């Protein structure tokens, strides 16, 4: 827990500082972080705005009025006398912990401008609720990257056609007079933005769990997840791991001399080492092996009905939106293109159609029943329409990361439907990507469109049903912050 405190006594000579010392000792004993502003005669370093913003709770131990109390208005506040702090600082810390627990909304990333989570689950402090808050924090930071990268890539397809991904690096060739050059630029900038998806997701999940010291381990773990092709699910693992590791390391008591460099040096260093190491060593090889095995299995599949193959590939595309399983299915489909056989073209069509389904379905679900989604998710539904239409499956990541157990199965269901129908209709596709922008290259576009719509409807319906499972009836928006004031 991270606490800020103010101590103040009438003369500002003794008790102000004794109370501060007692609180610091008690916080150290319980492994909490505390910053105390001593409003006494010897002056003190004022708490910075970010100190207050990042705090889980506020302790006011004062026998006189606290200067600038308004800055704590949005925080859980515990009040006591200086004598209470001196005689029972541990008790005040515990009260602060209770207060912080009752207001988990302010315990997360500390972005007061976002009234998240607004899901009406604030009252509970169970692990499930906190887990959802951590994930939502990660998601809320990843959405701008999805939107920026996705829209740029969609734009590049719109003006440059699907071959734009084959364009040379803009650093090598960029002709301001050529529209294709601009499309290539948009595509490459968009791809750069997409590189951040998993690290940002992991970094801010870790940040929500264990504050700033966990940020670097989270980002590093996310980058390691990208390096080993673990996709956004790997990013979720990395983020949660980083938060847990740094949270655990913070509990270790260290000598006063070292304590100062813990948050900026020791915790980021050790956390990054542990999390990055685990991601590379424990996840890297198994994922690579699994991908190879899965690819071999797909290539060896014979005598499977086209319908079943479409459903299988469709489901694989949706399950991890850019992760290892998605990659295997997609690579399988693209690999067939070179043969030019009818089956290969049908498979390509099925895979792309299936990949368009999740973002479209989630956008649809969030539009028809916004109350089942957080505000951040509702906001990401608007770009998701375009991302889905452009076969940028990553548009589903904000939804899937926020609530994987409900969203992923629903997405798989709809994508498998589209994959199977597309195969059954015999739709074909000659381009490896491009979404609606390659519709002219689709054989049987009308039935293909129908297959996609059917999958979108199935997914949207499934996700709306799933969102009702295991959720308490939603109440009003987050309760207003009240302070558990004990009058002096």
């Amino acid at each position, binding site marked *: 827990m991270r606490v800020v405190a103010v101590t103040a006594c*009438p*003369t500002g*000579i*003794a*008790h*102000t*500082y*004794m109370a*501060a*010392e*007692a609180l610091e*000792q008690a916080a150290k004993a319980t492994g909490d972080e505390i910053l105390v502003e*001593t409003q*006494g*005669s*010897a*002056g003190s370093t004022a708490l910075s705005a970010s100190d207050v913003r990042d705090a889980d709770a506020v302790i006011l131990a004062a*026998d006189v009025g606290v200067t600038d109390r308004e800055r704590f208005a949005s925080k859980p506040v515990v009040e006591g006398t200086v*004598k209470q702090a*001196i*005689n029972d600082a541990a008790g005040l810390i515990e009260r602060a912990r209770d207060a912080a627990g009752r207001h988990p909304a302010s315990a997360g990333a500390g972005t007061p401008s976002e009234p998240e989570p607004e899901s009406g689950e604030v009252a509970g402090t169970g692990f499930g609720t906190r887990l959802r808050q951590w994930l939502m924090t990660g998601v809320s930071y990843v959405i701008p990257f999805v939107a920026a990268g996705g829209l740029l890539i969609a734009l590049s397809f719109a003006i440059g056609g699907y071959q734009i991904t084959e364009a040379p690096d803009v650093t090598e060739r960029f002709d301001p007079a050529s529209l294709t050059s601009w499309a290539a630029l948009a595509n490459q900038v968009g791809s750069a933005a997409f590189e951040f998806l998993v690290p940002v997701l992991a970094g801010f999940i870790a940040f929500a769990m264990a504050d700033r010291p966990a940020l670097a381990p989270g980002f590093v773990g996310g980058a390691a997840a990208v390096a080993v092709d673990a996709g956004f699910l790997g990013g979720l693992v990395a983020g949660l791991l980083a938060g847990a590791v740094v949270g655990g390391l913070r509990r270790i008591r260290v000598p006063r001399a070292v304590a100062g460099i813990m948050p900026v040096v020791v915790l980021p260093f050790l956390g990054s080492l542990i999390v990055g190491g685990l991601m590379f060593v424990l996840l890297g090889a198994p994922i690579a092996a699994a991908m190879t095995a899965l690819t071999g299995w797909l290539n060896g599949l014979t005598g499977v009905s086209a319908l079943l193959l479409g459903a299988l590939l469709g489901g694989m595309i949706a399950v991890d939106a850019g992760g290892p399983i998605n990659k295997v299915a997609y690579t399988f489909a693209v690999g067939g293109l070179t043969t030019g056989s009818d089956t290969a073209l049908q498979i390509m069509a099925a895979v792309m159609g299936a990949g368009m389904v999740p973002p479209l379905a989630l956008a649809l679900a969030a539009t028809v029943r916004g109350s089942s989604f957080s505000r951040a998710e509702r906001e990401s539904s608007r770009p998701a329409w375009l991302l889905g239409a452009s076969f940028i499956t990553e548009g589903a990541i904000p939804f899937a990361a926020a609530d994987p157990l409900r969203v992923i199965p629903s997405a798989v269901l709809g994508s498998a439907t589209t994959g199977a129908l597309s195969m059954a209709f015999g739709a074909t596709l000659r381009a490896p990507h491009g979404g609606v922008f390659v519709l002219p290259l689709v054989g049987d576009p009308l039935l293909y469109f129908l297959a996609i719509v059917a999958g979108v409807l199935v997914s949207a319906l499934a996700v709306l049903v799933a969102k009702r499972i295991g959720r308490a009836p939603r109440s009003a928006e987050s309760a207003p912050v009240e302070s558990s004031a004990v009058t002096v």
Partner: protein
Amino acid sequence: MTTELITSELVDLDLVGPDRASVVRSLAERLVAEGRVTDIERFLADVDAREQQMATGMEGGIGIPHCRSEAVTAPTLAFGRSRPGVDFGAEDGPAHLVFLIAAPQHGDSDHLAVLAALARRLMRDEFTRTLLDATDSSAVAEYVREEVTP
């Protein structure tokens, strides 16, 4: 004249007196003798005024009478140890360690930082234990001075 927080002349390891007023006066006389307090009656009145707001006895057998006063020339600590103990209003019994803290009315914050450091030390067991076990006034003064040096 030295302006150290405390000198051996400001330490009384065998503080005698039946009650709070008498031991505070006894320590205040040392402050006067050392030139830290110019007007003992005014100083004692200011200490009393502070004591009336809230008793300064703390758990653990510590009393910290203190004030900011026009009669004080420099931030100073007079320390007394009473074997039988003197009541300073703490709930758990009389005080054996008495810290009379004198702060000038118009001291700047740098000047008063030494008192803040002293107050923080009062919360540390090792500090109070050392003073309880001390046998020599000049050693006590030196120990306290070292402890509060920033």
